[in-house]
Structures are given as C-alpha cells and as structure tokens.
C-alpha cells in the first residue's frame, strides 16, 4: 500500500526476437509489464506507472507516470523491436521522469527489464546506482534473456550500489517452461517489499500455482465465502452424525455380545466403524446381522452345555457393558446378580455332576446296588435339580443305605 511512482524500462532490442521464452522474449516481457501495472495500481489507487523503451532509435518515454491503466496498456501495442539497449541512459531518463512526477509525496521506483547484454562497465553502473540511492530512488532489475556471467555481475553490482534497506531487488529468470510473468508474481517486485502483498498478487499467485489451490474443500473462501461455509458446515454435521452412530453401535455391541471371540471381532468391527467412513451405514447393518448371528451361536453353545467358558465370559461381558445409560447399568447389575446366583449354582452343580457321575459309576459298580438303581436314577435325576442340600441329603442316606 506504499504510495509509489514507478517507471518501467522495457528492452525492445534485437535480442527480444528470441523464442526461448514463449511465445518470444518481447511478448513475455509485455505480459509481465501488464501484470506489474495492474498490481501497482491495485495496491494503491494513487500509484502511478510510466513506461519507456531503452532500445530502438533511442530512449523514448511512451507514457509518463499515470494511474490510468488503459493508457499504459494501449502504449504497449505496436512497439517495434530493434537496436541495442542503452541501460544507463534508460535509467537516467527514468529518474528524470520520476523527478517531474505530479505528486511529490510518492516514493520513486524504477523497474528495469534487462534482456540483452549490458555494454556499460561496472563502474559506470555503480555510479548510476549511487546517484539513485542518493536521491532515494529504488530499483528493481529483472534479469532475463541473455545469460552471461559478466551481465549478472554488473547487474548485481548495480543493485548493491542502489540498495537502501532492501527496497531494491533483482530477479534472475532463466528460460524455462513457466512464463516470465508467473515467475515474477512470487517475487518482491510484485509483492512489494514484503508488506504482505496486495490481494491481486496473492490471488494471481494462487491461480498460477496451478490447479490445487490448497484451500479446504478446493474452494477459495475469498472467492466464494458462502459455498466454503456451506461445505464446512455439512462436513461437520456428517462427522457428528457418524460419531453418534458409531457410539450407538458400540453400545449395542457391548450389550448384546456374548462370545469372547465374537466380542473381539465386534470390537474390531466397531473400531473400524468409528472412522468416519461413507459406507458406515452399510457396515452398521452388517454389524446388526453379526449381532444376530452371535446371538444364535451363543444360544447353540448354551444348549451344547459348553457353557463353562461362555458363562464366565458372559459374566465379564455383562459387567463390562459400559453403557452410558444408568438405568441400563442398574438393570444389568440386577440381572448379573440373579444370573450370578444361578450360575454359581450351575457351576457347583457342574462340579457335583462331575463328582456325582464318578460316584454313581462307583455306586453302579458296587454289588447289591440293583434295588438302588431306581434310587440311583432318582439320584441322578435329582442331580439335575437345583437344590444342593437335597442332593447332599440324598447322597448321605444313599451312602448310609449302601453301608
């Protein structure tokens, strides 16, 4: 946003016919000039830009510093290529043009496009540089086109002489696939001494970066704030919904799950579901079916009397049911207690069964047990019953009888 008057020095010498920048050096230069003019006038409406050519018949000022972009673009038409670039004279005429600017409050800046070889020596250029520095004129140099060490050195020396507090810059642009303007956009020549860059430069840089804008959802909030906002809100809603669904599925799995293996598999499937996936609803239905399968399998297992392992697991499962619902927890606890009583009986009974089967085998192997067979059968039947003391009583008289 610095108030600036800029003079752009264009190189329209014979060397600009070369095609190593597309379409040719001169066109690339013209595009860059147009972009610079736009950037300058946008960053501060009172900025003025002027253009002069350095080659041809001699240094010629095409337009004196003006803020009228149309005038500047118009003067770039119909320029002829020819002659040799006169760098020193070009810079001096630019300085003179800036001196006679209308608004004396503007900072003075010269932008030089140096495409052809520099015929002046370093000393002369340094002298010019010092004079510019003395009159507080900043200088930006765009070194493109002809590449040689001498030219580079001379331009660097010129920059060193002019540079006051990093207000002057030099950019070397080698020939390549990217256009001259694209390379310049990211340089301080466009962004204006690191002030943060004008919006124009930033937007242009974003566009020129090629494709991926790097913004969330691929939409620039600057360009389309409503769309960006809508996308962001819908993303958050979807995420919240998925989390709620995942939590609910996890609860169901914890409640209904019986088998250890099934539980672990459930857990893994549940954890997989916690990731916000678009196929989450499908997975959820699968899990429900898995729950039903698990229930079926558990029922089968129970009937197969393979309950010792599953029962214990069932206990743990019931206690592990980390339901957020307090009522559910209470209900679970009650059921667990009842079940515990049953299960403890059952476990004891299992032990007894094991013992009793052993005892009954002994009983049957004993001589004179035949009339006791119905008793034995009763005993065996009573073993299935749930009253433990009855069994013991039965056991005791039976043993007495045997004795």
């Amino acid at each position, binding site marked *: 946003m610095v108030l600036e008057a800029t003079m752009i020095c264009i190189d329209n010498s014979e060397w600009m016919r070369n095609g190593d920048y597309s379409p040719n050096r001169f066109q690339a230069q013209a595009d860059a000039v147009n972009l610079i003019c736009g950037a300058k006038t946008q960053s501060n409406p*009172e900025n003025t830009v002027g253009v002069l050519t350095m080659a041809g018949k001699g240094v010629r000022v095409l337009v004196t510093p003006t803020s009228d972009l149309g005038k500047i673009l118009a003067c770039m038409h119909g320029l002829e290529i020819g002659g040799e670039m006169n760098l020193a004279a070009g810079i001096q005429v630019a300085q003179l043009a800036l*001196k006679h600017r209308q608004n*004396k409050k503007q900072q003075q800046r010269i932008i030089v496009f140096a495409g052809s070889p520099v015929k002046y020596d370093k000393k002369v250029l340094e002298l010019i540089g010092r004079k510019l520095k003395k*009159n*507080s004129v900043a200088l930006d140099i765009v070194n493109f086109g002809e590449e040689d060490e001498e030219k580079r050195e001379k331009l660097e020396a010129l920059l060193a002489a002019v540079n006051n507090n990093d207000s002057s810059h030099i950019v070397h642009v080698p020939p390549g696939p990217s256009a001259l303007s694209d390379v310049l956009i990211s340089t301080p020549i466009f962004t204006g001494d690191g002030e943060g860059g004008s919006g124009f430069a930033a937007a242009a840089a974003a566009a020129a970066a090629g494709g991926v804008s790097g913004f969330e959802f691929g939409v620039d909030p600057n360009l389309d*704030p*409503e769309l960006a906002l809508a996308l962001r809100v819908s993303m958050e809603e979807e995420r919240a919904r998925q989390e709620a669904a995942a939590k609910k599925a996890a609860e169901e799995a914890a409640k209904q799950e019986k088998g250890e293996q099934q539980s672990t598999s459930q857990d893994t499937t549940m954890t997989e579901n916690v990731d916000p996936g678009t196929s989450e609803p499908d997975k959820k239905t699968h899990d429900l079916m898995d729950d039903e399968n698990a229930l079926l399998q558990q029922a089968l297992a129970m009937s197969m009397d393979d309950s010792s392992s599953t029962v214990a697991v069932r206990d743990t499962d019931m206690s592990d049911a980390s339901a957020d619902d307090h009522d559910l927890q209470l209900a679970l606890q009650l059921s667990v207690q009842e079940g515990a009583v049953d299960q403890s009986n059952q476990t004891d009974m299992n032990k007894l069964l094991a013992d009793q089967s052993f005892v009954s085998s002994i009983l049957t192997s004993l001589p004179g047990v035949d009339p006791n067979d119905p008793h034995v059968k009763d005993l065996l039947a009573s073993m299935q019953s749930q009253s433990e003391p009855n069994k013991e009583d039965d056991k005791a008289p039976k043993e007495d009888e045997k004795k």
Partner: protein
Amino acid sequence: MACLHDHNCEEHDCSSDWSLYKHIDLSKVSALNEAVSGSVKSVFRAWEQRLNSSEGYLESNEGDPELIVFIPFTSDVKLKSISIVGGVDGTSPAKMRAFINRDGIDFSDAQNMQPVQEWDLVENLQGVLEYQTRYSRFQSVGNITLHFPDNFGGDTTQIHYIGLKGEATQLKRDVVATIVYELMPNPSDHKTRAETGGGLSQVE
C-alpha cells in the same frame, strides 16, 4: 541550565527562543542521502538537549558528504536564526544553503537553483553559534529545505542538532495536500459499501 552565551542567561530563557522545533511537522520531515532512513527526525530537540544525541543523529552515506534536509512546519513561521551542531573530525558541514516553500528539491535542483540565503559554517560543537537570516525574506515560511553541499574533509557529514529560532504565526499555508480534480463525476469512483461485495451479507 548554563548556556555558554556571552550574556547573562538568567535574564531570559534561551530555551524559549529556540522553541520553533515544536512547530515542525515531524512526520513529514525527510532527508536525502541519509545513511539511516528516518534518522533526520532525531536532530530536532529542545535547546537544553542540543548536545544530547543519544537517540541518533543524521549521517550521510559513506563517501558522500552532501545532505538535504526538508523541514515542513505546521503553520507559517518567521525564522530569525538557525543553529547547527555538527560532528567531530571534519564531519561538520561547511556550507548551508536554504530554500523556502519548495517541495521535492533533490540534489540536482539544489545544485542548480539559487538559494534564498547561504552561509559558511564553522565547526560548532557546543551549539553556541547561531546563523542569522535575512529576516525580511523569512517572513512566512511554510517549509524550509537545507542543503549541505560540503563538510570539513570527513568521509561523511554528521549533524547532531538543528535549532531554529523565530516566531510562529497561526497562519497555515497549503492546507489541501493533493487534489484530484474531476471534470465529470464518475460513479465508479464513488463506490458505496452496499455496492461493493456483490450483496453478500456478513457472516460473523
């Protein structure tokens, strides 16, 4: 405060005489060929502080003793005399040329133009010397440009203090800074907030 004038300072207060620094528009003070941008603002102080350049002083670039100092005032002043405190070892300025009410003088202008007045300076390290002006020519000074073309042989020129003595009038000159005149009103130059932004409402 003891001042080294050859008169009895108890009778009058020197500092009040040299109070024109209060009427300087410091934000618009500028200098050409200064080594440190903005250092020129530190040379305008009260009379008592004239030897105290702890906040910096004005120095020219290496190898180039020329300096131009542009001093705008907040109102027109009548300038009676000027005092300059230079640096040691030949860095004090040797000549001073003044231009009145001219904007944007640079070195080529200063060298070619006829100044309103010029003085030969001596090394004035204590700040006791004052250079009087031709008062009739300095009656309504809106801004003054001082050009120091030479020094006493040093590599750079240093100025530690510039004192101005005179009276401030309440008149102001050049109140309007820059005007862009419109021959015809152009609606695009007068965009209101409602028109820009394409009608999007603010999302807070």
